[in-house]
C-alpha cells in the first residue's frame, strides 16, 4: 500500500483544482510512462522482446513503442502476423526458453482470440507441471472508449482474466502506477501478467516521483489514494480519476470526505486495506470500468459480505457499464458508461441517507469529453 503516490493532477493540460499534486514533482503523461518503461526494459534486459501488431510502425501502439524498433532492432521490437493465439503461444514458448516477451493488443478485445493460450497454457504452465516451469511475460491490453469504439473495441475484460488462477491482472490508473509496476514486474516476477491500460488516459499528464528515486512498492498491491471518513470508493483504472474528481467535488461543496482506494491489482487486491477502510467509513461505492455482473464490483461485494457485512451502515452501491454491448451513438454511449454526476449523486445519497440530499451535482459532461484529446481514427 502506498498513499498519494498516484494522483491525477493534470487533465487535458489543465491543472484540476483541488486534486492533490504533492505526490511527485515531475510531470509525465501516461503514454510517456509506458514508453519509458518499454525502453527501460529493452535497455536493461537483453531478454526482453516486444511483440505485437504494429509495435514498429509510425504510430507505435499509441506512442508507447514509437522509435523503439529503430533503436533496438526489429528482432526485439517485432511486428507480428495477425495471429493472436499463435503469437501468444510463441511468447509462451519464448518465455520458457529464456526470453521475456512483452505482448501488445491494441484493443483488449483482440486478446479474446488468444484465450486458449492465456487461460489453458500461460496461466497453468507453472502449476500443472509442479512448479518446474516459469512463464515470465507481460501482456498489455488497451481498453478503448469513446468516439464510437463500439462493441468490439471497448471491452474492459479484467474479470475474465482475474477469474483464472495463475494470472496476475493489473490496471494502471496513472503514470506513477505504470512506473511502479512494469519495471518491478519485468525485473522480478516470473509469471504471466496482464495489464489493462486505458486509452483515455494516454494523453493525461500526472505528477510522478523523479525516475531516479527508486521506490519499493509492491507491483501487485492496492493503493490508498485519498483519505476520508465518510465513505469508501473502491475503483479501478480511469474510475480512480473519476472517484478523485467526485471526492474533490463533495469535499468542496458539501464537506464530505471520501476515501479512495485504487484496487490496481484486480487478481489479488489488498483486501485488508479495503476492509480497514470500509470498517472505518461504514459505506462503500465500487466503481469499475467494466460490467458489474460477476466482475470487480461483484467481487468486492463478496469480500465485504464474507468478511464483515455488519460494518456497512448503508447498502453497497456499484457503478459500471450498463449490461449491454457498447453502443456507438454518443447519446447512448454516454448513458452506457457511469459519469461523474452519477457518481457524486450515489455518494451523496449514501452519505446523507437521503435521495434529496441537496448536494449540488456537477454539470453533465461525459468522461470522454473531459479526458479525450484524440479525435478520429487511430
Amino acid at each position: 500500500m502506498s498513499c498519494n503516490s498516484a494522483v491525477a493532477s493534470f487533465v487535458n493540460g489543465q491543472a484540476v483544482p483541488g486534486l492533490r499534486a504533492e505526490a511527485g514533482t515531475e510531470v509525465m503523461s501516461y503514454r510517456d510512462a509506458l514508453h519509458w518503461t518499454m525502453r527501460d526494459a529493452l535497455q536493461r534486459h537483453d531478454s526482453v522482446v516486444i511483440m505485437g501488431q504494429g509495435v514498429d510502425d509510425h504510430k507505435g501502439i499509441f506512442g508507447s513503442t514509437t522509435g523503439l524498433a529503430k533503436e533496438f532492432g526489429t528482432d526485439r521490437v517485432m511486428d507480428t502476423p495477425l495471429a493472436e493465439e499463435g503469437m501468444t503461444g510463441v511468447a509462451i514458448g519464448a518465455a520458457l526458453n529464456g526470453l521475456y516477451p512483452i505482448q501488445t493488443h491494441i484493443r483488449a478485445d483482440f486478446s479474446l482470440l488468444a484465450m486458449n493460450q492465456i487461460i489453458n497454457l500461460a496461466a497453468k504452465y507453472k502449476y500443472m507441471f509442479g512448479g518446474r516451469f516459469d512463464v515470465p511475460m507481460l501482456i498489455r491490453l488497451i481498453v478503448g472508449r469513446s468516439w464510437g469504439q463500439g462493441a468490439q473495441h471497448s471491452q474492459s475484460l479484467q474479470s475474465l482474466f482475474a477469474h483464472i488462477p495463475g494470472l496476475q491482472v493489473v490496471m494502471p490508473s496513472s503514470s506513477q502506477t505504470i512506473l511502479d509496476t512494469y519495471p518491478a514486474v519485468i525485473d522480478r516476477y516470473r509469471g504471466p501478467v496482464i495489464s489493462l491500460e486505458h486509452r483515455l488516459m494516454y494523453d493525461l499528464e500526472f505528477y510522478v516521483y523523479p525516475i531516479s528515486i527508486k521506490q519499493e512498492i509492491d507491483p501487485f498491491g492496492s493503493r490508498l489514494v485519498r483519505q476520508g471518513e465518510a465513505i469508501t470508493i473502491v475503483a479501478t483504472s480511469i474510475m480512480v480519476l473519476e472517484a478523485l474528481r467526485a471526492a474533490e467535488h463533495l469535499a468542496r461543496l458539501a464537506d464530505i470526505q471520501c476515501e479512495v482506494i485504487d484496487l490496481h491489482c484486480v487478481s489479488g487486491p489488498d483486501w485488508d486495506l479495503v476492509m480497514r477502510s470500509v470498517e472505518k467509513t461504514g459505506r462503500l461505492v465500487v466503481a469499475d470500468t467494466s460490467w458489474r455482473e460477476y466482475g470487480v464490483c461483484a467481487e468486492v461485494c463478496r469480500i465485504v459480505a464474507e468478511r464483515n457485512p455488519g460494518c456497512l451502515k448503508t447498502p453497497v452501491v456499484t457503478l459500471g457499464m450498463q449490461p449491454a454491448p457498447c453502443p456507438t451513438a454518443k447519446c447512448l454511449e454516454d448513458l452506457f458508461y457511469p459519469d461523474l454526476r452519477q457518481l457524486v449523486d450515489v455518494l451523496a445519497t449514501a452519505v446523507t441517507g437521503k435521495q434529496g440530499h441537496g448536494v449540488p451535482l456537477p454539470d453533465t459532461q461525459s468522461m470522454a469529453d473531459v479526458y479525450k484529446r484524440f479525435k478520429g481514427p487511430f
Partner: protein
Amino acid sequence: MDYSQKFCDLFFQALRIRLVEERIIELYPSDGIQSPVHLSIGQEAVAVGVCRDLRKTDLVFCTYRSHAFYLAKGGSLAEMFAELYGKITGCARGKAGSMHLAAPDVGMMGASAVVASTIPHAVGAALAAKRLGHDQVVVGVFGDGATEEGVYHESLNFAVLHRLPVVFLCENNGLAVHSPQKARQGYDILDHARAYGLPVYHIAEGYDLVKVADTMSDIIQRVRSTREPVFVEIRTYRYKEHVGPGEDFVSGYRSKEEWLDWKQQDPLEQQVALIKTIRPAILKEIDEAIYFAMSSPFPPVEELLRDVV
C-alpha cells in the same frame, strides 16, 4: 534382420516404452492410477527415432499422448509412475497426471491436453534460441488432427517468416479420437505444409526403428546447421482406444485388419527372440519404478495452493 547396435539400442528404448504402457494396462483396474491415459502403444518408434539424435539441451513440446516421448527424451521412469499415482515424487508433484508429463532437465518441455496448443510454444522456444544464440533444435510434436487447428497455420507461418530452428513433427495415426482423417481434412497434409515454403519430409514406415531414426538424424542435423524450420510427417498406428487401456476394434470405426497389417511390420511384435532376452531387465526397472511410486507419499495439503503464481 538388422541386429546392428543401432537397431538394438532403438529396439530396447521402444520395448521399454511398450512394456511400461502394458504395465499401466495391467495396473489400471486397481484404480491406483486415477488419470486418463492416452497410450502410445504402436507409436513408440516415432518417439524413439525422433529423440535418438536430440541432445538434452534440445527441446521437445508434446501432446497428451506422450508417455513415449517423455521416456524417449530421457524423463525419469520412476517419476513418471509416481506422477501417474498422484504422488509428491512425481515429475509434476502429483499435479499433472498422465497428460502433462515434463522433464525440463532433459528438454521434455511439457505436454498439453488441448490439441495443437504446444505447436506455437516450439516456435517461440526456437525464436528464443535464435535470439539468444543457442544451437538448440526444437521439436513440436502434434497429431494429424492438430493440422486442422488455426494455430498450426499461425505457427508454420511465423517459423518460416523468421527462419526458426524448429521441426514440425506430425505424428499421423490417422485418427482424431474416433474420426478418420478423410472425414476431417479437405487438404493433403504434406501439400499444405509445402505451401509454406519449408522442406517437407514423409516417413511412411513409422514402425521402422532404423528408418525413422536415420531420417530424423539427417533432418535434425540439417536444422541444427541451417537454423531453418522443416516439416516431417511420420505415419504411425494407434493400437489402443483414444483414451484408456482397452482395444476398441469392435466399435466399428476402424478395421481390425489394418491393425493386424501394422503389427506384421512392428518389430515389437515380431522380434520375439530379442524381446525374450531383454525383457527381464526392463521389467526389473519397471518394478523398481512402481515400488518407488507406490511407496512415495501423496502430496501434503500445502501443495494445493503451491506454484499457482
